[in-house]
């Protein structure tokens, strides 16, 4: 490709006009108090879009039991292998349920494959993003924690209902 250099006059080649122009632009931004975009985080929060992928949660079905059938598809697809499921038999109709369901949030990359692959829509990535801790072991969420997070309304736009506590 042929680059055509602009013909600069002597005055322009001293850099001064461009420098002054740049300086004027930056200076003109200082008094624009109204346009400041800083979000003062702990007090003011970002309105999360509905499809935001935060920490995973497990859903509770209408019958009061976890929806997960322990098919282990999420465990299988999880790229960083953050999910660990131990299955057990159950007398319920679904026949299998997770005895243990751990997600290591130190590993999770929030890709959402688990949500994508789940046949019973039991695992969802939700709007929680404050998971910092001083201890890595606290970042391994077990089944109870995941289920407890799942009970937090509001849930999904248009899908709030199934989340409610069982009657």
């Amino acid at each position, binding site marked *: 490709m042929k680059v055509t250099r602009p013909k600069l006059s002597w005055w322009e080649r001293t850099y001064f006009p461009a*420098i002054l122009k740049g300086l004027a632009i*930056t200076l003109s931004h200082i008094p624009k108090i109204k*346009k*400041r975009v*800083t979000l003062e985080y702990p007090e003011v929060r970002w309105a999360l879009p509905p499809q935001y992928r935060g920490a995973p949660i497990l859903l509770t079905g209408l019958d009061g039991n976890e929806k997960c059938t322990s098919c282990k598809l999420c465990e299988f697809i999880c790229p960083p292998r953050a999910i660990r499921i131990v299955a057990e038999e159950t007398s319920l109709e679904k026949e299998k349920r997770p005895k243990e369901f751990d997600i290591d949030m130190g590993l999770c990359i929030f890709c959402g494959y688990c949500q994508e692959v789940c046949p019973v829509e039991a695992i969802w990535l939700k709007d929680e993003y404050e998971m910092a801790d001083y201890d890595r072991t606290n970042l391994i969420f077990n089944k109870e924690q995941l289920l407890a997070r799942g009970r937090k309304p509001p849930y999904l736009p248009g899908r709030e209902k199934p989340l409610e506590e069982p009657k």
Partner: protein
Amino acid sequence: MTGIWAIVIPAFVKILVIIAVVMTGVAYTTLAERKVSAWMQDRKGPNRAGPFGLLQPVADGIKFFFKEDITPKEAYRPIYLLAPLLTLFPALITFAVIPFGTSVTVAGQTYPLAIAPGMNLGIVYLLAISSMSVYGILLAGWSSGSKYSLMGALRGASQVISYELGIGLAVLSIVLWTGTFDFNAIVADQTGGWGKVWFFIPHFLAFVVFTVSIFAETNRLPFDLPEGESEIVGGYHTEYSGLRFAMFFMGEYANMITASAFVVLLFFGGWNLPFVRYEWFGPLWGGLLSMVVFFSKIAVCLFIFIWVRWTLPRFRYDQLMTLGWRRLFPLAVLNFVLVATWLLLRGRP
């Protein structure tokens, strides 16, 4: 209070005051840097520590103090530990010769507002000390045992050496014009009489050369190649952490304050204001007012430093050297010759 104590005690008090003022200035320049940059980018800047973030420098200081002090395995330890001191020390002792006001009279004694008032070689002293500030950069970069640091150090050293010529020649033309190396005389030559104007008007060429060179000398953008983050991590202070890094940081900002004071003294009339005479305010308040005016001018210069930093992109290294040696240096020589010719033909106006 006789004999030597009459000299030592006021000098000591002045040193304490100046160190306090400069250190506070350094701290708040860092805050100003962050605030102004934020405003220019439509952000708010630090506002958590104290009202409007005014305690932010204190918080930074505490953080620096408690950070872990790491010495890399490959570092050459004695020099690695010495280098930050060699950066901060010259930055601070330059203030010995900078007069920061006229004089104050307390209890019948008149004290000139400078740590070394009788120094009539102030400019040479300042050039001598600033020529030694290279050591900190060079040794820090070399002793870290990291290639980024070494690159930064070599860049820094060659840049500082190259631009010192421009500074020296620009200053020399002022010296030639006024016929003195004394800051007080140069300041006195810029105000207080018919036809005496601040030197940035008659010596505009020298002013431009000096200002551009001083940006390079203090390693500020657009000439911050020794520490260009996007190319060589942090340059010569890549490997430093904690209090030692803080020393580099303070040294850099103290250098900025010195450079601003230098510009103000040489080109902007020092502590004088047009049409204002400090004798009107009496010996004490006049002196204090002159000090306030001087520091305000320095503050304006510091703002310009920050303003330029957040506006202009970094030069490429060959561009930097071209600018230094092929533009500014001939310009400075030309200016020197012009001043000399004028003095030869017309004498002092």
